[in-house]
């Protein structure tokens, strides 16, 4: 038994019991195989939903969530009001839960496990020692073996550990690690040692929230709320001289669901109109359903805005284009066509033609217009991946005379080449001699023209006697103008 609901617990069925024993106690008990993966998924979704209470949420074991609520409780009035609100929401969504608020993660963990249903113990910071004394040792996040050993010593309550000499305790454990774990967990619960908090998502740098006393049920209401939030957030950003590149808009349904859309900007922005325009394409993804009672807008990846004056004339401009306007255009296109729809082609100093350029998402980079090393003629169109051609007639170490590409026979009238491009041997070092057959092969590129006047760039992969596999194959790499 891993978990049992309230009626089962009332009948004396506890976790750790064997199923056969449980069935002996309650013959009509319903049981189900535990699905850890599904649990984790549900817990992750719940953690994401917790963002309405605190942006920082972390897993606490396999069955708990930890929220960093510093600075968040005033939004609800007080810590007690916040816990009550959280409890109400969770109960509404059908979750059995135990909530506790404390100054350290360890204390909160222990209190929450010790708390009964419906009560939300709140331990003020600094009073951990007294507050935890009566709690069972199991609340201290220790391994089962350690707990067994402590029970044999007669230590069952956390408070019993306070006055024990640490060295004497350590000596009684078989391993130092187990003894140290006890001290560490105790110190962490009491706040004597810091405990790192690893949130599932980094906290947004800026966020605005809009609680709706009357749940929003129309798309117009959502749009209006987004406009208010955007204006507030942008005012906040611009007062700090910042812009942000990532924005997430979350709408919390009153029945416990959450919908979220995000937009990205190629360069930091803080213009409300631009943001609203980006969000407009995606707002259809938010269905008001039975009502939305909280809207949240977060900004991430903030950076100082580059504010500059416009040049007096085009001759004085640093570049030939307005990079701000281009970035805004790119944002709008990406918002509608999908992330990564707008790409910049960057050159790379590499010899293989298919590696000489790389497509990357446009993030307001400045293209590198440095002079490129001289190469042979390059085609006006490159195929994304070379297509194999079957060569009908060929002479060794020469261009093909006839070949079939895309089901058509083409007769070569003129040819130029080869331009021999060796593979980057330093990227494929032979691990063993038998792997020599898998090594990249030298390519001989030919510029050829067929009897219809079309010009191609074909290559022969490999030489006839390079000892790297079978006979060489021919491929189509690109098309000349």
């Amino acid at each position: 038994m891993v978990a049992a609901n309230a009626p089962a617990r009332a009948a004396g069925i506890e976790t750790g019991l064997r199923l056969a024993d449980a069935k002996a106690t309650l013959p009509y008990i319903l049981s189900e195989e535990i699905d850890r993966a599904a649990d984790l998924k549900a817990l992750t979704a719940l953690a994401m939903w917790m963002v309405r209470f605190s942006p920082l949420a972390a897993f606490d074991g396999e069955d708990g969530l930890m929220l960093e609520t510093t600075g968040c409780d005033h939004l609800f009035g007080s810590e007690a009001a916040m816990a009550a609100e959280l409890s109400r929401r969770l109960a509404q969504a059908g979750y059995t839960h135990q909530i506790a608020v404390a100054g350290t993660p360890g204390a909160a963990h222990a209190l929450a496990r010790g708390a009964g249903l419906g009560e939300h113990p709140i331990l003020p910071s600094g009073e951990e020692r007294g507050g935890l004394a009566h709690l069972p040792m199991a609340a201290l996040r220790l391994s089962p073996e350690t707990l067994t050993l402590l029970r044999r010593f007669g230590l069952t309550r956390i408070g019993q550990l306070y006055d024990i000499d640490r060295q004497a305790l350590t000596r009684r454990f078989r391993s130092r690690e187990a003894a140290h774990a006890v001290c560490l967990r105790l110190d962490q619960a009491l706040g004597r040692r810091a405990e790192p908090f690893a949130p599932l998502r980094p906290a947004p740098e800026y966020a605005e929230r809009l609680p709706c006393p009357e749940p929003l049920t129309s798309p117009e209401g959502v749009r209006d709320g987004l406009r208010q939030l955007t204006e507030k957030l942008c005012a906040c950003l611009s007062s700090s001289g910042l812009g942000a590149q990532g924005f997430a808009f979350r709408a919390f349904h009153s029945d416990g669901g959450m919908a979220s859309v995000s937009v990205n900007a190629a360069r930091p922005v803080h213009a409300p109109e631009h943001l609203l325009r980006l969000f407009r394409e995606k707002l259809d993804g938010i269905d008001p359903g039975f009502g939305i009672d909280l809207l949240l807008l977060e900004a991430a990846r903030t950076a100082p805005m580059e504010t500059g004056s416009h040049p007096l004339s085009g001759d004085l401009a640093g570049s030939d284009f307005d990079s701000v306007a281009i970035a805004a255009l790119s944002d709008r296109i990406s918002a509608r066509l999908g992330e990564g729809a707008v790409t910049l082609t960057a050159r790379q100093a590499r010899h293989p033609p298919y590696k000489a350029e790389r497509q990357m998402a446009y993030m307001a980079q400045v293209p590198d217009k440095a002079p490129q090393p001289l190469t042979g003629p390059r085609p006006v169109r490159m195929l994304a991946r070379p297509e194999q051609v079957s060569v009908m007639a060929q002479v060794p170490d020469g261009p093909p005379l006839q070949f079939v590409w895309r089901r058509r026979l083409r007769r070569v009238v003129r040819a130029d080449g080869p331009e021999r491009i060796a593979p980057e041997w330093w990227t494929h070092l032979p691990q063993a001699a038998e792997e020599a057959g898998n090594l990249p092969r030298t390519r001989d590129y030919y510029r050829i023209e067929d009897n219809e006047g079309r010009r191609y760039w074909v290559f022969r992969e490999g030489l006839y006697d390079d000892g790297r596999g079978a006979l060489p194959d021919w491929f189509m790499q690109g098309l000349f103008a």
Partner: protein
Amino acid sequence: MNFETLLSRGLIRPAKASPVAGAGFPFGLGASGLHELAEAAYGDRAAMTGFLLAAMQPAARGAWLWVQQGAIGRDSGYVPEAALSASPARLRLTVRARNTREALWATEEAIVSGAASMVVAEVEDADFTATRRLALASGRYGVPVALLLPYSCSGPTAASARWRISPRPSAPNRYDPHAPGYPRWRAVLERCRTAPSVAGQAFDLEWNDETLSLGVARGLAAGPPAPHAAPGAPGPRRKAG
């Protein structure tokens, strides 16, 4: 002697006012308005791209937006940055669209934004309504647009001109009679609003990729080009790799 007297005596002449846009070849391609280029047959897209880059008037310095419908990119490949090195594009962004609707939307968005100095759109189909929208936007915002269309496109259009491009056997190579020379194309001006009298004319063009000049091809080879007397000294050898 002031400026007016110099002018009246004919001693100096003001710089000739720019001729009416689109009066002569290439009839405003790349300078203003919407221009269509179409393949003559399947597989002529490379020739069409080469013609566009060679023939357009280099007025559009700045940022280019190259909108490409995904299927065309998969079929005919992409235009590498190296092919644009002679063009006035300082920044070229590629937009990949899933379908014609998205591609046309992105094209119009780019025109209206005023951020791009030239927009090239490769779409599978563009009907009269679509071209009318693009032509109006292009005229209003002064952004030249080139629409690259497949061979199957032949319906009515609102573009300023429609070219149909096919490759021709290349010019004889001075240094190697067996090698392809400068590329040659046949460009048929199917429609032209700015100069209706030349509509229907065919231009046989030759692109000199060393001097970057486009000229009328002379002595167009009908069959395989006649071997040319090679000059005394062997030509410069191209470095491999």
